[in-house]
């Protein structure tokens, strides 16, 4: 990265200061940076999603792009149909295209409800995916690693902590008596977990800020070595 008062460093530095100034109080410079940030980032994703998803995954796969440009792209469904006379699986992407287009019915006052179809598709895929993968990675895999021989203090702590923590999450029994005691211990473990993760994160976050200050004082102003 170039150092010193270049145009790009100066723009970057002003924007950095503008955002940080929010810590003192809301002010015109922050409002400016915030508005700019919202606009630029929305535009960034708008462009990126087109080039990274819509173009390669839909238009290229179907063979629409290839109709208009001579770019070096693999043949799509249309080209396969014309050249080899075979209906390729990639024609199925037409369904995705239709579902996607239905999303835009939101813009038409009385047809908005049709956009529930693509939505239902997304929710279905999501539930199917989460149903299996989260069960495996969160429930089964964690259960597996909690089954430990009680041959060290560490293992005893893990087993007791996990068991009591689970009891805390038990919804259909009042937390009284033994259950209450275990749930209480469970809360202690949760609190230690939160404290420890918080403490650990302090480190990461401070490093980020050090990085920004280093940009201002070394890269831009060139004050430190």
């Amino acid at each position: 990265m170039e150092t010193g008062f270049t145009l790009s460093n100066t723009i970057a530095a002003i924007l950095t200061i503008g955002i940080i100034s929010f810590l003192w109080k809301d002010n015109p410079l922050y409002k400016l940076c915030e508005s700019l940030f919202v606009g630029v980032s929305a535009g960034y994703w708008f462009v990126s999603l087109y080039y990274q998803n819509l173009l390669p995954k839909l238009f290229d796969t179907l063979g629409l792009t290839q109709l208009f440009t001579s770019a070096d792209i693999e043949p799509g469904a249309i080209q396969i149909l014309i050249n080899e006379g075979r209906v390729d699986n990639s024609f199925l992407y037409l369904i995705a295209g239709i579902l996607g287009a239905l999303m835009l019915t939101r813009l038409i006052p009385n047809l908005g409800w049709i956009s529930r179809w693509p939505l239902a598709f997304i929710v279905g895929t999501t539930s199917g995916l989460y149903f299996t993968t989260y069960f495996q990675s969160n429930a089964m895999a964690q259960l597996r690693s909690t089954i430990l021989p009680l041959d060290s203090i560490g293992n005893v702590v893990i087993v007791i902590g996990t068991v009591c923590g689970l009891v805390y999450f038990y919804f259909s029994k009042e937390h009284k008596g033994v259950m209450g005691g275990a749930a209480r211990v469970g809360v202690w473990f949760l609190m230690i977990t939160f404290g420890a993760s918080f403490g650990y994160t302090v480190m990461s976050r401070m490093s980020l800020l050090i990085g920004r200050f280093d940009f201002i004082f070394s890269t831009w102003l060139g004050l430190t070595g």
Partner: protein
Amino acid sequence: MRREIPMILTGFVGFVYIIQFFVPHAPFDIMEGLLTDWMLIIFAFAIWLGALNLLKVSLDKIYRKGKDWQYSIVTVFGFLLIAIPGFFFSGGRRFQDPGTAFDYIYQNVYTPLSATMFAMLAFFVASASYRAFRARTKEATMLLLAAFVVMLGRVPVGDMITQWLPEGYRLSQVADWIMNYPNMAGQRAIMIGIGLGIVSTSLRLILGIERSHLGGEE
């Protein structure tokens, strides 16, 4: 009608996805890739709605001369500032290559804004710890102590002030122990609970028992 078709669609797609998890045989072998791609395509269409909404709200405000309307001009300007070069002047699908107009704005406007916003967390972490880490109750004290040990144990100072302790009991080592055992136990309990919560929520969605996200009959 307006609710039934989406519910059937959700259930059908959900089941197909679950089946492909257990059945490697055709036609299920291509389902995962297919459905994931389709989802991305739908999202890519949907962002048009969001972008148009942002522009509409901003232009409305400018038109009505609402409070702080000048800043809405900046938002619209920012959007066009990156979208127009991105679509028309950055070499098409190689828009992210170093040296394109899109990349210049990304590097010099987007990145510093984003990195600074991320870095502001450092300040918020400090003010949140000041307020939250008070030994009000037994539970709060445990949170406080764990955070304290880990924070000190993660920097050289922690070892400096506990050098007189025997090996294995210095702050950085105690911090490691907390991370690896009590912290791990708490994490596991949370994760297992989440796993079960997600299984049951997904099942309710697939079976159409939970359907408020689809809205009403109109």
